[in-house]
């Protein structure tokens, strides 16, 4: 669970390798990195272009007129923010934050019990959690939607929060339990001797000590929920006042040629927050990913 990024030590043999022997590596790396960047770069350039030209010429044609002010414009961003994307951005925030907070809290209590309490059925329950990690959420869509429809709660934010909480719980419980279980038992035993009960040991000791894994899961779940399309489409729907960014963007993409000039700016509006989170908290995020699949 301690996902370390071990610092690459420069070995003598590595130093001995001449620059000449490394150039195929430099070339290959550059080519792959270039290929991987081009699609996003093209979209970024397009999003700042004057709107009519997006539809008439490819984005690479700006290379001839980079310094011509007529090439560039912020008009696309202004238009998409007015045309629903500003609202959708707020909706997505409204969906994402509770969808992260709720499962983390519930999972933390469960993880503590799995790690530090004895009770009948503990192993069976935890094995169930492990099994549920790979159950496709597609299995849950129709029955849940039917219940939601019966109670007329489809299209409300709490409907999506709880759905995301349910689908995120298995991984959360699993990750948190493994982390909490690996904390040294000595501190907890000494707290126990001092007369602290389970609730205060959990709240005062375990939660503060578990901040790294809580942060990893929070970032992971935030990006998951922010980028989710299916759950939002099914439980929140396409009504303009509640729909989230991915639904709004898919709708715009479905309008064809007419909306083509707005697509790049719209796509960047949907991407900006995850990209900021990703770059600012990359270390935590990578740690979360690593923790989920291999011992880091």
């Amino acid at each position, binding site marked *: 669970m301690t996902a370390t990024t071990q610092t*690459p030590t420069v*070995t003598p*043999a590595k130093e001995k390798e001449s620059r000449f022997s490394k150039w195929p590596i430099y070339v290959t*790396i550059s080519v792959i*990195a270039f290929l*991987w*960047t081009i*699609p*996003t770069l*093209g*979209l970024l350039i397009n999003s700042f272009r004057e709107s009519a030209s997006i539809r*008439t010429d*490819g984005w690479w044609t700006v290379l001839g007129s980079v310094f011509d002010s007529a090439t560039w414009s912020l008009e696309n961003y202004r238009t998409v923010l007015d045309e629903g994307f500003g*609202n959708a951005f*707020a909706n997505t*925030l*409204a969906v994402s934050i*509770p969808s992260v*907070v*709720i499962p983390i*809290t519930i999972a933390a209590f*469960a993880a503590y*019990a799995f*790690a*530090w309490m*004895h009770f009948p059925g503990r*192993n069976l329950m935890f*094995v169930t959690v492990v099994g*549920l990690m*790979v*159950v*496709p959420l597609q*299995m849950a869509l*129709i*029955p*849940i939607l039917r219940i939601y429809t019966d*109670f*007329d*709660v489809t299209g409300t*934010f*709490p409907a999506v929060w709880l759905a995301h909480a*349910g689908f995120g*719980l298995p991984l959360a419980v699993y990750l948190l339990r493994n982390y909490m*279980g*690996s904390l040294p038992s000595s501190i907890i035993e000494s707290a126990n001797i001092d007369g602290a009960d*389970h609730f205060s040991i959990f709240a005062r000791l375990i939660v503060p000590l578990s901040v790294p894994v809580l942060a990893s899961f929070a970032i992971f779940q935030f*990006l998951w929920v922010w980028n*989710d*399309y299916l759950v939002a489409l099914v439980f929140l729907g396409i009504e303009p006042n509640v729909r989230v960014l*991915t639904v709004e963007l*898919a709708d715009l*993409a479905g309008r064809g040629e007419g909306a*083509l000039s707005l697509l790049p700016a719209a*796509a960047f509006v*949907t*991407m900006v927050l995850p990209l900021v*989170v*990703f770059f600012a908290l990359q270390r935590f995020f990578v740690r979360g990913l*690593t923790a989920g699949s*291999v011992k880091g």
Partner: protein
Amino acid sequence: MTTPPVIGEEELEGGPRGLGPPEQEHVHTVGVWLLRVASALVLPAVVIAFFFIFGFLKDEEANKAIQVVVAIIAGIGGVWALYWGMDRLVSMFPERIARAVRPFAFVGPAMAILAFYLVYPAINTILISFQDKRSEAFVGLENYTTIFTDSFYLVSIRNSVIWVLVVPAAAVAIGLAFATMADKLSRRAESITKSLIFLPMAISFVGASVVWTFVYGFRPEGFGNQIGVLNGIVTSLGGSPVNWLQTSPWNNLFLMIILIWLQTGFSMVILSSAIKGVPDVLLEAARIDGATEWQAFWRITFPSISSTVVVVWTTVVITVWKVFDIVWVMTGGLFDTQVIAQTMVDEFFTNFNFGIGAALAVLLFIAVVPILIVNVQRFRAQEAIR
């Protein structure tokens, strides 16, 4: 986004040890079990009641900020307060009973939510898959015979299988190659180039589809300049533009490339940290014995990280098997590009054929059952060692 639900071999080093002396005096009375169930259910009941009452307030945007604030307060403060309240309540019982009931107040809410959002729906979906279109009568295996005989569904299954064969292989191969080579760069160059490959991980599948719209864009000849990069290259070389997304069967490959682009970063990062875990001493010894870098990789690095490769591969397989958004947005499943998860949503929400839709969902599930079993067995094995 990739959920990493696959358990690695060396994981789970931590473990439940439990506090104090394990209860020798097992409390087996019916009353205690009733208390346990009650303590597990109170919290979800309050949360769900709150939500259903709250749900009726589907109002205008004016309420959105309030809703979010309430949700955050409820999510953190309210839920904490409920757990605390339950804990106090349980503590009011005699110590022996409180001790037997308390774990259920901690673990119960999570289990209740899992039962409501995953276990019950999964069983229900299996039932629906044996019923007709509108879930009014049982039809036996009819839905399953349909999806395994009708050519439309067969193409869907075929495509999903091809996705699962191609995308993880490519993502792991490119990710592994890149991680190995980047390991030899200076630390700064390594982190910059790795970020570039990893960046698409932060992009939604819908966003990625829009990104690639400007790669695969197509204008028939005589209908203006090309705005897609690929056709820009093709036409500047003198060729005629290709309608990448409507030319079956190759359009499937072009859609797969989008997912490869998204998933390579994931496999690269995980494999990179595994590669850095291979002891330098081993590689050093091999080099001194005259091994080339190529030999050192295949004889030492690769065998040491093979279990990680398997885990990454499986994780990507699970993601790919459920791919929906990319096909939905790019082609809508037309031009022979349909895949299982997207056909399923189409059956549910366009054709309202719940029987077939549920059968397709079950198909998605059955295919991951072996992974589920392996996960559980690995977990059991780890527990046994402890």
